[in-house]
């Protein structure tokens, strides 16, 4: 599987046990000729072919591979496709020691390997409070009750007959990056920022259903969303939010929601932390007061330096992170690199992203990839030539309200160091001469 180097001077990590400690020292000292020869010799042994062939060119070109000389596999052999076997490393992962019970845990999306802005449905992060279920959609019901003219019940068939919309939005757990409030705690962007995903969601606006039930606009101030799982998760949503761009969704990226993401029905609350996007949605109640449900009175409350807690904090403020290169990775080469990452804001669109390679002394404005959508991930890129010297990479996003993503010192000055939720500080990745990138915090 491993291919020989094809570009002179290209530094690749040596296979295990391939170089002696002395030889590793020579590589570290930048002896590239030595490295090339050593690789050529090693591949010759590995491939059972002569040095002469390497001199002629790349064996990957000169020797026709099996896939060019044999019959391939038939259509629909895998009727619901799966990624290439070579992509097995990128998957949802848990952070060891973060939670004690797997049914009330979280898995992180592998942001270090994703492109564009859409998270593949199978890699969408998970956070369950009492385990997930695969619910029969024929038996699932949505009830709307409370301050409405008529409490009503909808089947999935009913809901999917209504006029639907499809919109791309990010979802971020309020605790995303929470492990880093006090200090650096985890190695890669998967674990620092991976409670973040972005999908095209399809569903009916909640306003359509509230209208259908005859919402009492004089008295209604809030709605309660409730799930059908064991925990029957409940969250309060202010009425102006509920009537704005909130969806009762069944679709995700062109397919039905995945069970881990709330199949067959979930709430989509753009800009608001993930816990409000109630999964396996079974009920909407309209009321005139907030509910102080468990996850808005015991968790997802922010502890401030003066000892008070903030309740109902739920906006995910403007934030960004560089995903390539990022913590736990190694750059293979000096020379040209495209620094790429993600930016998002719960208050609207991303207006600008700046990138620094010197720890925040100087900044350059990055290119934003289209589409740039409200309350959705936006991909940014910037050209960079790495000369081999140490660097500290940072990104800083600005949204269309003019809000600029803060640094750690600014965030801690207001919110202290004992909080967990809503950490949107600027992330720093330290690049060493070796090409190794690691997670650091810069002041």
């Amino acid at each position, binding site marked *: 599987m491993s291919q020989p180097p094809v570009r002179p001077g290209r530094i690749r990590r040596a296979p295990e046990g391939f170089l002696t400690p002395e030889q590793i020292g020579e590589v570290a000292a930048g002896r590239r000729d030595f490295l090339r020869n050593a690789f050529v010799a090693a591949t010759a042994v590995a491939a059972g072919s002569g040095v002469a062939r390497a001199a002629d060119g790349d064996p990957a070109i000169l020797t026709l591979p099996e896939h060019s000389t044999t019959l391939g596999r038939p259509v629909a052999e895998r009727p619901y496709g799966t990624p290439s076997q070579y992509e097995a490393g990128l998957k949802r992962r848990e952070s060891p020691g973060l939670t004690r019970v797997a049914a009330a845990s979280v898995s992180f999306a592998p942001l270090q390997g994703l492109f564009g802005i859409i998270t593949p449905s199978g890699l969408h992060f998970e956070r369950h409070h009492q385990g997930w279920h695969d619910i029969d959609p024929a038996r699932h019901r949505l009830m709307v009750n409370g301050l409405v003219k008529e409490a009503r019940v909808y089947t999935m068939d009913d809901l999917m007959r209504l006029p639907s919309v499809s919109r791309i939005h990010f979802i971020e757990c309020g605790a995303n990056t929470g492990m880093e409030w006090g200090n650096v705690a985890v190695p890669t962007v998967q674990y620092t920022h991976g409670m973040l995903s972005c999908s095209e969601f399809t569903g009916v606006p909640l306003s359509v259903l509230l209208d259908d039930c005859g919402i009492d606009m004089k008295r209604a101030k809030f709605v309660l969303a409730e799930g059908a799982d064991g925990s029957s998760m409940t969250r309060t949503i202010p009425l102006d939010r509920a009537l704005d761009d909130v969806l009762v969704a069944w679709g995700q990226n062109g397919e039905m929601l995945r069970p881990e993401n709330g199949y067959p029905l979930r709430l989509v609350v753009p800009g608001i932390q993930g816990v409000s996007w109630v999964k396996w949605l079974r009920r909407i109640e309209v009321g005139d007061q907030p509910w102080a449900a468990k996850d808005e009175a015991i968790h997802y409350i922010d502890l401030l330096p003066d000892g008070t807690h903030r309740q109902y904090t739920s906006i995910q403020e403007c934030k960004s992170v560089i995903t390539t290169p990022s913590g736990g990775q190694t750059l293979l080469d000096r020379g040209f690199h495209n620094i790429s990452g993600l930016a998002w804001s719960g208050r609207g669109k991303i207006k600008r992203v700046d990138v620094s390679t010197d720890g925040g002394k*100087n900044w350059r404005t990055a290119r934003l990839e289209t589409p740039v959508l409200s309350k959705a991930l936006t991909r940014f890129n910037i050209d960079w030539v790495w000369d081999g010297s140490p660097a500290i990479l940072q990104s*800083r996003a600005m949204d269309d309200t003019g809000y600029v993503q803060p640094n750690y010192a600014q965030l801690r000055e207001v919110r202290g160091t004992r909080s967990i939720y809503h950490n949107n500080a600027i992330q720093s990745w330290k690049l060493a001469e070796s090409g190794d990138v690691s*997670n650091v915090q810069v002041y």
Partner: protein
Amino acid sequence: MSRFTELALAAALALSAGATLAAGKYEGIGRSATPAEVKAWDIDVRPDFTGLPPGSGSVDRGMEVWESKCASCHGTFGESNEVFTPIVGGTTKEDIEKGRVGAYIRGDAPQRTTLMKVATVSTLWDYIHRAMPWNAPKSLSADDTYAVLAYILNLGEIVPADYVLSDKNIAEVQKRMPNRNGMTTKHGLWDVKGKPDVKNVACMKNCKTQITLGSSLPDYARDAHGNLAEQNRVVGPVRGQKTGAPAAPAAKPHPALELMKKHGCSGCHGVGSKILGPAFRDVAQRYKGDKSAESGLAARIRNGGSGAWGDVPMPPQAQVSDADVDALVKWILSGSPEN
């Protein structure tokens, strides 16, 4: 059901029957909910106690419920940190008087317990009733919910040991909640149009003179997430770093481990350690030499039960095929080999 509730239900029924005529705007879509349907699902309880059903429960009764259904996860005194964070601890008599938790103000709280955080007693009633016990949500009666909550409040010294909590006196308890004055909604992070509390400016050139590395990843943390080389793509501009303990030669896992995961057994049982239910190896140990163990365990998996290993009930697992039950039982009784 009280006479009053019956009347109210009858009135609601009449109202909803009338309203059906003026049903939804989308012809043929949705229908009115019956009062019984609304009652079945409308279980939320608000801070003003709207939704709270009538009932009562004593601290003593609460202790019984607690020990049989709650203690395995939360510890006998609500202080366990084994499965979930502690419910009780960290509050004082002074906190109860003032409604502010002093440990936060002083900043010396080693851990935040539920009673240190929650400002509204309704929240506890609501969540216990809707989601507890962990493995059998919504199985507690209203009276048992009052009782369990009374027990928790007593552990926190919020109510005395002879207290009987009910819908009639819960508002009095609210006045003693230790953090009742410690919660604020005065911030800009609820409303999308709210005012942010942190302000940065987009400086572009010579923004600082010195870079201080305040915090770097310690080696143990770098290695705690396994081999990062295996968590990155094998092509592209970067590779993952090789971290973590060197991978042991992969021994093939026992197929029963897959079955155990597939059927959700691992949520409650560990191979060598107790989770909610006993460790499989403890089960094998107990039934060593017992010829009826195989059929007995198979029946236990299929039908559920309680008592053999304490009072946490084992739910029935009717969805597991006979072949899988058979394979699991044989594997458990053979000492649960991992390979």
